[in-house]
């Protein structure tokens, strides 16, 4: 195993689509994002479908004996991940509003997300 780093920065898009609890997918996605952040690449994180539930304020994960994912998401800004998007329609169908989001994120429509995916070099979905 050798490190094979290439010099040019790539645009990596991560699409988080799972609810914060019930499966470990959301946590696994966050781990991928944070691992990428230290590589000095262009990172974009998109929450859509049940993934928007990860951003809901006032989560009480201790009740089911797991770590609070929302608290973990708050480190995104410390890792200098500024490009965070939330799919507007996913919020709407779950009865959520932008005011309920626990972290700074830009609410956007699906056309914008299409553009973000189109401009990406690598897309990870989980």
């Amino acid at each position, binding site marked *: 195993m050798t490190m*094979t780093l290439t010099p040019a920065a790539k645009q990596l898009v991560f699409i988080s689509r799972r609810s914060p609890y019930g499966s*470990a*997918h959301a946590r*696994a996605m966050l781990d*991928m994002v944070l691992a*990428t952040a230290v590589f000095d690449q262009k990172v974009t994180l998109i929450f859509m479908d049940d993934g928007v539930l990860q951003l809901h304020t006032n989560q009480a994960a201790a009740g089911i004996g797991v770590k609070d994912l929302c608290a973990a998401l708050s480190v995104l800004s410390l890792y200098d991940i500024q490009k965070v998007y939330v799919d507007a329609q996913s919020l709407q169908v779950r009865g959520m509003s932008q005011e309920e989001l626990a972290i700074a994120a830009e609410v956007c429509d699906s056309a914008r997300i299409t553009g973000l995916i189109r401009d990406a070099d690598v897309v*990870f979905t*989980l």
Partner: protein
Amino acid sequence: MPEAPTSVGAFFFATSCHGLSAVKFTIVLHAAPYTSQASHSALRFAQAALSAGHEIVRVFFYYDGVHNCNEFSVAPQDEIDLVKAWSSLLQAHNIDAVTCVSSAMKRGIVDEREAKRHELRSHNLQAPSVLSGLGQLVDASLASDRTISFGA
């Protein structure tokens, strides 16, 4: 370029790699063997890519995908042994393979070093895969033309 032998491979090469000669792939496997088709599909994709003359920079076993590296897995005689099949393919083509260490440890996939460190009775990481971190997935993606995930 010869036609890829599997449908999943043929579809991908036809739609995404048209006009590219030798493509560098990173393969990410998220799913355990036998529970879903993902492991077998990924294996067939890898075989198709290699036989079409492409390169696999690294296979990264993540999440439940680490179960593909459990040497203690025993397949019934009338089913494909996916753990051995992966190991054979990786060794035959000298492909770099990494098993996510944090995913693996909590699922009971350990190498000799970790077994000693945690005073476990045995170890079961299937060669040639090695335990390492998610940085190896990022590193491989940056060095590849295409990163393709199975079982996500």
